[in-house]
């Protein structure tokens, strides 16, 4: 019966070993190579090699196929000292992986050589519990949850659409939510704007939003802008956010958001509501179509009554805003297929969803062929409609 030492030596003789200096170039250019940290969770949380994937030794065989589906992909494994990774390399070889190496000396040698490493973002026990229904989904997992926590969204308007979208994004664990709205809470808002309540009538909507959202999720950072978007501030306001959630209540803001987002290369999750009808789509960061492909020009003011003049079913923005939050989370996680190129029209009276195809207009002034997006000029349109 072999001793541990002789077993280890026999395994090491059968696997390829590499060293930290040979692994170092992967930091800048990993190419196809996948670096896998196979240590236990409490080791990994104390620091790991940037770019490495963490799959603890115990789950390696069951998880490697999802992480590295192609058996010919070069894989480098490391543990703390280079022994566990040798056994792991042997196991992967037996599973048919053709190019597996174990990093001799492991993470200890890596650190000792003064090579860069970093601390991973990990969920606290409270967060693990809070987001367990997310992390249970293999499509999200802990990595996806951390991605959400490192993501940011800007909700334009803290009203009918901004209420449900920001609430669900905060609940989902999105790290930073920006809210821009220059208005104060009015009793007539409460029929649909579920961020606010009766005690807050007269309070700035962004302050009320912050209170509600942080009450729901104290980890959340809220960036408040008690302002209207103009050509002067739009670039600065939009720039720090990953996804723009457009719930504006007027055409001039919507065109401004479209143009600035194209300049900045940000995706816009667009929704609008009118009486019993809602529309939603995603304008992607790259390619198109954009808002101007859909509607080249805004309607004249007399044809664009606002909710305050035309009325709106209170639940309608709830549905549309929650759809916006869904699309936003998908964009942040790179999950599924978004509504880019599709306009979803919801008729609440008939309970009918219709899906219409949106195409990028090659002659679109902002996303058409040959348009240099950095040169898009931002315009403050005249007041098209009275607003909110």
């Amino acid at each position, binding site marked *: 019966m072999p001793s541990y030492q002789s077993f280890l030596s026999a395994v090491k003789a059968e696997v390829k070993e590499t060293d930290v200096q040979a692994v170092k170039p992967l930091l800048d250019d990993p190419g196809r190579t996948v670096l896998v940290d196979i240590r236990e969770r409490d080791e990994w949380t104390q620091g790991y090699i940037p770019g490495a994937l963490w799959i603890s030794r115990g789950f390696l065989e069951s998880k490697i196929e999802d992480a590295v589906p192609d058996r010919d992909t070069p894989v480098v494994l490391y543990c703390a000292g280079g022994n566990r990774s040798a056994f792991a390399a042997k196991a992967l070889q037996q599973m048919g992986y053709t190019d597996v190496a174990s990093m001799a000396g492991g993470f200890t040698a890596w650190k000792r050589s003064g090579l860069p490493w970093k601390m991973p973002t990990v969920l606290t026990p409270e967060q693990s519990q809070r987001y367990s229904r997310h992390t249970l989904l293999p499509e999200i997992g802990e990595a996806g949850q951390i991605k959400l926590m490192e993501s940011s969204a800007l909700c334009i308007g803290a009203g009918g659409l901004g209420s449900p979208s920001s609430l669900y994004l905060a609940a989902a664990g999105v790290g930073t939510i920006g809210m821009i709205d220059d208005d104060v809470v009015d009793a007539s808002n409460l029929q649909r704007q579920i961020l606010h309540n009766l005690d807050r009538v007269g309070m700035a909507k962004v302050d009320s939003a912050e209170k509600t959202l942080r009450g729901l999720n104290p980890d959340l950072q809220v960036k408040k802008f008690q302002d209207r978007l103009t050509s002067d501030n739009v670039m600065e306001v939009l720039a720090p956010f990953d996804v723009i959630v457009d*719930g504006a209540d007027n055409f001039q803001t919507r065109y401004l958001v479209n143009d600035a987002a194209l300049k900045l290369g940000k995706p816009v999750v667009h929704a609008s509501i009118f009486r019993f009808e809602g*529309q939603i789509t995603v304008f992607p960061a790259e390619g198109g179509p954009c808002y101007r492909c859909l509607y080249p020009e805004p309607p004249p003011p007399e044809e664009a009554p606002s909710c305050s003049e*035309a009325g709106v079913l209170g639940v309608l923005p709830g549905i549309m805003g929650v759809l916006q939050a869904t699309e936003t989370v998908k964009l942040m996680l790179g999950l599924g297929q978004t509504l880019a190129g599709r306009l979803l029209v919801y008729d609440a009276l008939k309970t009918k969803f219709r899906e219409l195809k949106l*195409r990028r207009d090659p002659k679109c002034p902002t996303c058409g062929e040959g348009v240099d997006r950095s040169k898009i000029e931002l315009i403050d349109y005249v007041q098209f409609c009275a607003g909110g």
Partner: protein
Amino acid sequence: MANVRIPTPLRKLTEGKEEVTCAGATVRAVLDDLDRQHPGIKARICDDSGAVRKFINLFANDEDIRFLQNLDTPVADRDELSIVPAIAGGR
């Protein structure tokens, strides 16, 4: 006969009906028949030159007619023509 879907803002002109059945072999002919049944509605959809207004889209089934043959896009029996205007509400 095509089914024309009337958006909320234009239902004042169709006595509240959200769907109107119209005859016509092209989008243009369907709109003319719609206007015969509900006078004044075409002027809300098309401008004085007869072109579709730029804040309104017409979809033949799920395709935007601007990317087909515009008002000359053929319409078959039981096709659906959707009128989709820009709306901006968010609050």
